[in-house]
């Protein structure tokens, strides 16, 4: 094994599980997550020299996120759905993702995993930031770098994500009918 590969395995490979978890939360299917992580690891390996010993975890997760959005755009193009214009940060009107996806549908069968399902149902802009903070335990700076938004946006979006999740969670716990669709 050459020296570059050894460095990659020492510095980046330890975060493969983080990359995989993040991809699972982003992608619409387990297969999509597999493809996304594999592509991300290849891109990371090719661009490894740009890392120069910095925060490898946040760097890798940024690449995972880019791979995911590339794949998403390709899917949309194949489906001949026009790409939406670049949008401003969510302003709180869309608290629940529109269509059910295969993953959340399969999760739905397991009622014990309520919270997991509620997180999966959050819009992506909320979900990714919440996962980076609560599951990947990243700080605001790292999140801002991964999501590529200013710190202020990280803070406000995180607050909205938590408020939305908590609201849906309470409705679920209290068993309000039709609270979470």
């Amino acid at each position, binding site marked *: 094994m050459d020296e570059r590969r050894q460095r990659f395995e020492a510095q980046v490979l330890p975060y493969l*599980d983080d990359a995989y978890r993040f991809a699972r939360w982003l992608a619409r299917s387990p297969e999509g997550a597999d493809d996304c992580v594999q592509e991300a690891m290849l891109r990371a390996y090719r661009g490894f020299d740009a890392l120069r010993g910095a925060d490898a975890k946040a760097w890798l997760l940024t690449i995972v996120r880019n791979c995911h959005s590339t794949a998403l755009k390709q899917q949309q193009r194949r489906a001949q759905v026009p790409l939406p214009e670049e949008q*401003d940060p969510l302003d709180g009107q869309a608290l629940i993702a529109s269509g059910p996806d295969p993953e959340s549908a399969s999760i739905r069968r397991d009622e014990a995993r309520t919270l*997991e399902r509620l997180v999966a149902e959050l819009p992506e802009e909320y979900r990714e930031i919440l996962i980076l903070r609560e599951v990947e335990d990243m*700080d605001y700076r790292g999140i801002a770098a991964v999501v590529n938004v200013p710190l*202020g946006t990280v803070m406000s979006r995180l607050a909205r994500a938590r408020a939305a999740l908590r609201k849906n969670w309470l409705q679920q716990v209290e068993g309000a009918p039709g609270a979470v669709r």
Partner: protein
Amino acid sequence: MPCAESLQVQAYVDGETDAMASAAIERHLEHCAECRGLHQELIELGTALRRELPYTQTPPALRAQILRALDREGGAAHPPRRTPGIWRLRSYWMGAVSGLGAAAAAAALAFVLIVPSFKSPLVDELLGAHVNSLMSSHVIDVVSTDKHTVKPWFAGHTDVSPVVADFDSQGYKLIGGRVDYLEHQRAAVVVYQHGAHIINVFSWAAGHQSLPDKVTRNGYHLMCWKAGDLDYCAVSDTAWDELQEMVRLLQGAGALEQR
């Protein structure tokens, strides 16, 4: 209407506040019932999430597949691509290594702690770009005190040709140039040093977004003006009159260039 301190309470729960800010928030919590409730909720939610969400690991087959793919790549380094996205990424990571230290950390923290209430998304972008450049210590792409080096450099790296001048004798030293991504285009940033302060002068092809002439956000002053078909914005944490003097000098140099 939530309490104005709610984002600070969140930052406190997320461990983003230093000792002094934490103490201030703890004092606030003593007399604000709403924030006490929020504080409790955030802790509960975090605990529940960490307990309930699966901590998935990479399937062994996928890991093996990835390692095989890396084998096929070989060991040669690939040149990094110079797209704006990658560039911003690189600047952040390169900066994160060297770390400009306390000043940058303080700038970052100030930005975290003071909740922004931006009306103009462009002001938000400008301030974000300024703070990012300080945080990452990647202030400069082309290091030069010579305007005849900096100006041509922009021609190859951005879509604009801004006014570049050195005012060393007046206390504003040209230290280099940088590219930032602003309003969906590659903006030129001329970097000056005034005492211990960095002044970033952004310039980009004028868009339709209106900008305030002067605005202060989170302790940073922004002064914006238009010259020819370019929008300019100088951002710094210097005193107001010092920034104004810089802008006056730049506008004068710009007028000379036009002749």
